[in-house]
């Protein structure tokens, strides 16, 4: 039972040990809160991008299977692509910021 207890404590607290070692200068610096936040922003934008791509593909399929007229498709497709480009630009900005932060370090 004691062995199980020790294994449990070791497994659960392992990340804390790694952080403690990093803080005392014996290990690599762990990811900080800023990094986590930036990664979250980036992940959110990438998810938005994937959703937008899916929407573009759906609209194309709707058009090809006759659910969207040529006129409606052109309008919707243009809007969606514009929105996708905006998201891609935001991703680029976020990545530039990431590069700049790494450079500052």
């Amino acid at each position, binding site marked *: *039972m004691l062995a199980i207890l020790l294994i*449990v404590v070791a*497994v*659960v607290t392992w990340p804390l040990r790694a*952080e403690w070692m990093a803080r005392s200068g014996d290990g690599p610096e762990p*990811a900080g809160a800023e990094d986590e936040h930036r990664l*979250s922003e980036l992940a959110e934008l990438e*998810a938005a991008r994937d959703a937008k791509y899916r929407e573009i593909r759906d609209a194309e399929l709707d058009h090809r299977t006759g*659910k969207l007229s040529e006129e409606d498709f052109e309008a919707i497709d243009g809007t969606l692509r514009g929105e996708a*480009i905006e998201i891609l630009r935001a991703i680029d900005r976020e990545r530039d910021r990431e590069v700049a932060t790494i450079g500052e370090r």
Partner: protein
Amino acid sequence: MALLGRALLILGLLVALYGIGASLYGAIARRPAWIQSGRRSVYTLAGLMVVAWVILEYEFLRNNFSFNVVAEHSSTTTPTFYKLAAPWSSQEGSLLLWVMLLSLWSSLILFLTRRRVREIAPYATAVLLGFSSFFTFLAIFFANPFTTTATPPSEGAGLDPLLLHPSMMIHPPMLYSGYTLLTVPFAFGVGALITGRLGSEWTSVTRRFALAAWMFLGIGILLGARWSYTELGWGGYWSWDPVENAALMPWLCITAFIHSIMIQEKRGMLKVWNVSLVLAAGTLSILGTFLVRSGILSSIHAFGASTLGFPFVLLIGAMIAGSIALVIWRRDSLRSEAQIDSLLSREAVFLFQNLVLVAMVFVIFWITFFPLISQALTGTKVSVGPPAFRPFIVPLALILVLLSGIGPIIAWRRVTLTNLRRNFTLPVAVALGTLVALLLAGGVSARPFALIMFTLGAFVVAAVLQEFWRGVGARRAMTHNSAPVALVQLIRRNRRRYGGYIVHAGLAVLLIGVAASSSFQHSHDVILSPGQQVKVDGYTIRYVHPTAAATPQKLSFGAVLDVTKGGKHVTTLRTSRGFYPSQDPTLGQIGRFFGGEADSDVGLRAGLFKDIWSVINPNLTPLQPLINQGNRVFAAALSQAMTRIAGLPVAQANADLTPLWQARDRAVAGLTSRFVTHPWPVEFLFIVSPLVTWIWLGALIIVSGGLIALWPVPALARRRSTAPATARRPGSAVPAREPA
């Protein structure tokens, strides 16, 4: 082993509580190491619960009756296969199963999302561990599976005979997986509301887990229906039992979510609605668990009265109050980004379908809980049955089927008259053709529900087939592949869409089966002697001869039935009723073999168009005088034997009693065989139902569609990078006019 099991539960609770603290501290103080530590608590908890579960299974397999739960739910004669399933037939074992499945699913999901939804995940981890803590707490303090007794019985009470059915091996784990998986979208919903991150990443992650929960819960519900049809001896597959309803409500809720989340993904609309559906589905899954365990409503599926009701009420109250508070707090972030352009659009159809599904949930909730409500208001517990549901559920189901046909063929945002004509002409024509054919065929017009359901079902199937046909056509025009290759490619590249269409077709097939079997069922309750026959829906069913068997597990009284139509042999059915020995001493030494729990083996001939279903209900009263006489004789013999063996060593005493037990077993076998040698009239229930098989076929189609929709799609970005360069628009990373 019992001590180890109890220690594992306590350690599991401590780990879960630590994990909650670590996750919340990590999220609030922005300390990733603590967040990771919290996540590891979930993995560790899963490991501990798996070990605890293995211990419990081991004790069942080796008939360790010092474990109360083993003594109460298994016996030496329980087949090994069912000993493995016996733990979840008990309150204690099923609580442990709940915690184990929850921690396993939570581990898998938190592992898969370890680099996604980074800010939401710690709060979701805390919520999931909160559920785990709750159930582990119940398993420790209210229904501990590792409770033992110092004086174990020599034989266990055995498994409830009704649970001796192959689907019991998989039905509860599927149902529990569905319930536990529903807490995952709930947890991520709470996390998203706390962090305010209710964007694309949350919707993408939550949709997938909601779909998984929908699949498992759906399979669990259908396996339960199948069990009811083939085991319970009443001939139906759905009885609107409170526990059945408890599983159906969250399933309907999450079905609504799977559709409406698409509107949020595409248009940024219905955010409050979607997050509310997720929170409601999670709460309803706990409510379902509560109904099974509290015994507040009588059900054949419930564990009976228990003391678990109050903790569950507290948990459900906290979930409802917390959910409402969070949604109100985040109402500004949940504002819609757009509005519905037209009532003739897929958004509007989805919204209407959502309203129908939620209306169904309200109806089922209200009627299921009406006995409790009436008791609270009037002091009288009014019982309600299936007829109370039908007037509301039938019209709602018809609307739902209609919408499931319109959904796939109507465009997003708005439709034009030309689009409507192009997409609706064929399905409407097929539906009208079906209607006219049915009216001309006769016999259906008297059953309006069935008539409308067949018509709408034809509409849905035609709409889905048209979508596949056009999709394959579009694909072939782009790639010049053969139709089968184009079909496979079409589905592979659009799994969500075409998986969903397959589910819609499956639903139509399933509901056609329900409409046909419930509207055109012929049922006959009759008493027959060997050689006599009865006519049911044109079939002649003859009671050929009785059968009987006495085994250590049960006594079986059955019949062989010959089914003919127009003088031609159709099938031979064998049905029996098994009686399991009771441990009740008041029934007597012989009587206890005839007075215990009983189950039915249904004689079933299932066909694509018709099922012939039979069950025997033998009346054992003619044996009663002989049973009474046997009780007296063996009570006297046992009394004499007990005097004789008093003071003898146990082994010698047992050896002395063996001839008596052998004589008793011969007497029981002799009495059983009288059912064959001196047959008397017995009661049968015969049911001839059309299209029941369509229900199971529809279910299989739904499951395969769900699997296609759930199957992981390669990352769009990766797919884009492998697309031909000519398929891209110059100067843009946005894919241009990819093939369908």
